[in-house]
Each structure stands twice: as C-alpha cells, then as structure tokens.
C-alpha cells in the first residue's frame, strides 16, 4: 500500500504516468465518472483549508466516490485528546482513502504508519504540501508541454513559503532549469536550498527587482507574504505589498510566459491581469482537481480501461 507524504515519494517516471493519467481525465472526464463508485474518502482537516479540502472532495466526487470527514480540529476527536495514531486506526474502518491536513509537521506520516488505507498528506504545518507541488508540476507540464529547459522566477516570500521550497526540490530533478529568486532581503531563499542547487550544478540568481528580470522568464511563480509567519506586524505591513504584478510589468514579459500562484492571492497580483492569457493561476486550481483524481486512482490502484 502506498501513501503520499512528499512530492519526492514518486520517481520522475511515476510522476509522468500520474500526469498522463491526469491529462486523460481532463480530456475524458466521463470515462472516470464511476471509477470510485462505492468508495469513500475521509478528509481529516485538523486546520481550516477551504481550497485544498474542496479540491480533494471535488476529485473524489468526480470519480463517483463519496466523502466524509471534518474540517476543524475542534469538531473532531482531537479536541478530546485523541492521538493521530488512534484516529487513523478508526478512520481506516470507515473509509478507503484519507487526505489529512494537520498543523503538526509529520502528523500524516504518523497516520500512514498506523493506517490500513492510503494516506495523502494534504499539508502538515510549514513542512510539506505535496499535492500543491503536483498541481504546479502538472500545470507547467500541460501548459508548457515540458518539465525542463526553462527559466522560472519565484517571487515573494521565498523564506517561509513551503510551496516554493517544495517546488524547487521537485524541479531539481529535471534538466535545463534556471531559477531566478526574486525577494526582498528579509525574505530571501534559505541558504540550505541554494547550497543544494550549487551541489547539483543547477544555475540560479537572486534579485530584488521583479521588473528587471521579467523579459527572461518563461514562468513566474508568485507567492503571498503570509501574515502568520511574522512575529512583528510592522515587518509584515512593510513587506506585504513589496511586489505587485501589474499589466505594466507584464508588458515586459514574453508572450508565452505563464503566471502561476498557489492561491489565495491578496495584493501581489493585480486583478487587471486575470484576463491576460498568460495568467494561469485559475487553470492551476482546475489542474489541482485533475491531479488529485489521478492520485486517488493511483493510490487505490484502480485502472480505468
């Protein structure tokens, strides 16, 4: 039985098969409409997350399965002090697969070690959020036609942004990628990541100005500066609007550059960009459902002819 804890749990070849399946689901959704008839997914969300939970639920419902679960630790047995190990043992009796989000890092791994059903890490604190990374990879692969041979700019909070760290780790396995890290000094990419890139012989540059690098980018991954990561409100206020992607800046970008964002967006992408064909962040949310559908089928070992 397989679980998904980290985007690196799958080899590059396995990811290719997963993305092929996701693209087939995109083209032939009806073919998969009953693939999970009679099966149940438990969504155990110990902290609120509208998008990820609904994406998982939509994925299971699209496959003909049903969904049960909770969306807040206070409405679960965790409020009574039940351990993650005990909860998953019980959930294993009720459902066929489980997506778990937990504020404590490593909680889904503990669940997976005691579970009789596949467990998907739907985000564990600031640690991993593998299905977001799979979503990002599928979006790039589907819209660019390749995973590799491009220059990607990552902009915003590169210090605390777990989606960024996870995406870099996943992209490091592909050839010909040049990273451009765009952030204020205070939110620079951590040294351990740049050291890893150096060790692997992967090229990167660190800049502060987004405008200057726009013409060279094939992809721009924008991130939100998250209030909850700051101890000091003053620092947050100073940095939250450091980057705002406007149509003026987009004029400098290539015609086929793509703008990605894990969402939710606050101010970092101006709404005037939404209708620009290069804005791919809402398509990205759609690909998130396809990749979760493919993941559910893969982990449940369901083949659709």
């Amino acid at each position, binding site marked *: 039985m397989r679980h998904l804890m980290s985007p690196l749990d799958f080899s590059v070849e396995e990811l290719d098969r997963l993305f092929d399946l996701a693209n087939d689901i995109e083209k032939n959704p009806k073919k998969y409409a009953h693939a999970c008839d009679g099966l149940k997914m438990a969504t155990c969300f110990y902290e609120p997350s509208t998008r990820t939970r609904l994406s998982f639920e939509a994925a299971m419902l699209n496959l003909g399965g049903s969904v049960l679960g909770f969306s807040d630790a206070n409405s679960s047995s965790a409020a009574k002090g039940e351990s993650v190990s005990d909860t998953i043992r019980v959930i294993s009796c009720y459902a066929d697969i489980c997506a778990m989000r*937990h504020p404590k890092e*490593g909680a889904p791994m*503990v669940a997976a070690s005691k579970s009789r059903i596949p467990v998907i890490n739907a985000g564990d604190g600031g640690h991993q959020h593998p299905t977001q990374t799979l979503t990002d990879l599928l979006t790039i692969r589907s819209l660019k036609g390749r995973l590799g041979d491009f220059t990607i700019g990552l902009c915003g909070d590169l210090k605390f942004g777990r989606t960024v760290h996870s995406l870099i780790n996943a992209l490091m396995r592909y050839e010909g990628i040049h990273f451009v890290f765009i952030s204020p000094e205070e939110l620079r990419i951590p040294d351990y990541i740049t050291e890893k890139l150096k060790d692997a012989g992967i090229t990167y540059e660190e800049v502060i100005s987004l405008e200057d690098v726009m013409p060279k980018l094939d992809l721009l991954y924008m991130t939100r500066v998250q209030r909850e990561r700051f101890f000091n409100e003053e620092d947050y206020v100073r940095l939250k609007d450091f980057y705002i992607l406007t149509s003026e800046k987009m004029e400098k970008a290539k015609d086929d550059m793509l703008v990605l964002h894990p969402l939710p967006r606050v101010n970092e992408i101006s709404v005037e960009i939404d209708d620009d064909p290069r804005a791919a962040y809402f398509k990205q949310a759609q690909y998130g459902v396809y990749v979760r559908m493919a993941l559910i089928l893969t982990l449940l070992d369901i083949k659709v002819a």
Partner: protein
Amino acid sequence: MLNVGKIEEGFVLDHIEAGKSLTLYYNLGLDKRDCTVAMIMNAKSGKMGKKDILKVECDIDDLDMDILAVVDHNITVNVVKDGEIVEKKELVLPKEITNVFKCKNPRCITSIEQGLPHVFVLADEKKEIYRCKYCEEKYKQRVKTVVQ
C-alpha cells in the same frame, strides 16, 4: 601529573572533546550502571591540545556504539581484557537513531503524540547531518538533548 591506574576488564573512550565526558557519561547511561568509571578531564593531547578520557569497568556489549558515534565519531574505543587493550572499535554513523535525541521543533508531531518514538535519520553522511524522521528538523545541539 595525575595518574589513573589501568582497568582490568572494560573499555577506554579516548579522544573525547575536552569538557564533554560528563555529558557523555549521562548519554551512555553510565550513571545507571553498577560499574566503576574514571573520568579524566582536560588531559594533554598531542592531537587535540586537550581531551577527556573515560575508563569504564563494564562489558563492552553494554556500550551503545550508535549513541557514541552520533555524539562524536572521532572518539577512540579501546576494549580492555586482562589489563591489556585487545581491540580498537571503529565508530560508524548509524543510518537511524531512535529515542536518543529529542526533536526540538515545537511544530513537530512528536511534541504532542503520546508514545511516539523520536527518530532521527542520517540525511547527509558527509556533513554528519541528522534530521527528524517526521518534520525533517536538523538535529543541532550535539550531546545535550537526550530523551529520558
């Protein structure tokens, strides 16, 4: 110069970083054993300048080599029988170490889940970096944080 006599049966831990032998004594659980221990601190050393030495009269099988390797794999382990050194043991970094160090990340599941072992995995052998199996937090403080 201070003179500490030979031991008959047991082991001698040599080349311990100066000042670390007392912590090592607790790390190895020697305080809980009924054996004679001589602790020599700040001894002169050609190689290290100053070093600590532990002489322990107990069976070498009682010594947890994994703990010793993680704490400092440069320590020399001499096995003594009938008052003579009969073997020098080489320390190898274990791939995984359980319930020796405590994960200090307050966001780690080990901070709330009852009965969960604290497991550290060797993530980078060259740089001797261990990471928590659950949250991947780097193990930073050498020697000090031991699960009781």
